């Protein structure tokens, strides 16, 4: 479902990704690991089309996303769920409105929004905080809201870029359990992290990057660097 073919990314002479190739199947849970500067975030940026690769092809659901036109971008992004380390919640919208916004941008009806948003907030344990603004939430609550927003439109792929980077251990494990639960419903989860403990416990496929190169791809891998 996701296929990187010899993808390189060059930032003014600095090679952030060097001919990286891999495939991810439907419903997989994959961790992309490596130290800072290994290229994890670059892969995420390429997947969400924040950047275009210098060379190579990225196929998502049969479509090469490197040649998407800017008008097609919003429609592509609506098919993904993305969770960031810094949560990226809209500061002037409540928890409910942040989640509803993902449906509103895709022209969902008011009835659909009224039905889906409380459900997903219930699933991530945020229903009781639905009227709170992001600045009134803890880190874990913000991330759960972000996950709810990422999932509310039923994406087939959930991309999580260091989702536990700003969280304490308790919240970290809550978020990982949530991602695990999401994966069990059939959603592909791509988790970029440098948290060894998490990767070792997950016992899922691990792609290891070092200095922009793919150095290992293990089916039930561990953090090897």
């Amino acid at each position, binding site marked *: 479902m996701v296929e990187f073919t010899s993808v390189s990314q060059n930032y003014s002479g600095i090679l952030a990704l060097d001919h990286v190739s891999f495939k991810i199947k439907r419903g997989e849970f994959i961790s992309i690991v490596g130290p800072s500067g290994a290229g994890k975030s670059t892969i995420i940026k390429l997947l969400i089309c924040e950047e275009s690769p210098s060379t190579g092809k990225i196929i998502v659901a049969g479509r090469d996303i490197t040649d998407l036109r800017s008008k097609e*971008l*919003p429609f592509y*992004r609506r098919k993904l769920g993305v969770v960031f380390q810094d949560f990226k919640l*809209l500061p*002037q919208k409540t928890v409910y409105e942040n989640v509803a916004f993902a449906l509103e941008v895709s022209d969902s009806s008011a009835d659909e929004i009224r039905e889906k948003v409380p459900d997903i907030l219930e699933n991530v344990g945020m229903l009781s905080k639905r009227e709170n603004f992001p600045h009134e939430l803890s880190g874990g609550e913000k991330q759960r809201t972000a996950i709810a927003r990422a999932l509310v439109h039923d994406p087939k792929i959930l991309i999580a870029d260091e989702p536990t980077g700003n969280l304490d251990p308790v919240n970290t494990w809550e978020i990982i359990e949530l991602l695990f639960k999401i994966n069990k419903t059939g959603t592909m989860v791509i988790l970029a992290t440098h948290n060894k403990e998490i990767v070792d416990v997950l016992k899922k496929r691990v792609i290891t990057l070092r200095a922009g190169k793919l150095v290992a791809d293990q089916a039930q891998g561990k953090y090897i660097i």
Partner: protein
Amino acid sequence: MITFFRIIKFGIQGFWRNIVLSFNATFIMTLTLITLSIFFILNIVVTSSTGKLEEKLDITITLIDQATEQEVADFIKIIDAKPEVKKLEYINKDKLLKEWRDLFTKQPEFRDLITKQDNPLLREVRVWAYDSDNLQKISTFAEKKEFDLIVNSVSYRENQSKIKEIINYSKFLRKISLIMSLVFTGIALFVILTTIRLAIYSRREEIEIMRFVGATSLLIRAPFIFEGILYGVLATIFAEIMAIAAIWGIQSLENQYLGSAGGSIIFGNSNDSFLHLYQQYIWSILLVHLICGVLIGIVSSYIAVRKYLK
């Protein structure tokens, strides 16, 4: 339709939940509109008063006594046919005598110097031009040799320097008021554009997040543009309230210091006043404010958001 209502909802939410930024932008927009109005009104006042001043400029052609009434009538016909001539008035001996008597009503020793039988006053043709610049042209035409047996003298020569002085002064006033209007309009537009850009700059992360969740450029841009329209509409209301208060203040000062002569002194017409002028133009001013405010809001927001949608 759903999108339209969501744009309005997001716009109102954005305006209300960023109330400090919205208040600042509306306040600056109000000042911009007031600045535009001040110079708009200044232009009206200057154009009106200098126009009235120039309208009073005329030339007087005095006619030789020997010229027959038929010759005079033909001469008037020729002058009146000139495209530069706005109107003319023929003053015959009877009218001149009446004017003389009216002038010296309380001085009989002068009043009775001239009688109907012994009237040395020369008949006159008073001429007004559409453009006071053309008075000289009409004067030169009337001084042509072919009219030597009809025309005695043309007053333009005598008052030439004074007339030119008045014309130049009114031109100077108009030009200065236009330049100041343009300069201050430019400054006001720059300030409001910068204010709205700063307001949107502080919300650039919001735009980035909207893009990540798949919002189209229209859905990102339109609520900001709607907020810009709100700044314009609210600023129009505030500017109108402030303008009414200012006009009342100026009017009472005019009444206090200039009394009933205020209209003549400021506008060259005793029936004119600031209040009267404002009442006359209130709908135009309101419409100009609204169009300017809304347009500035739309354009500024569009430009400011565009940067973050690339």
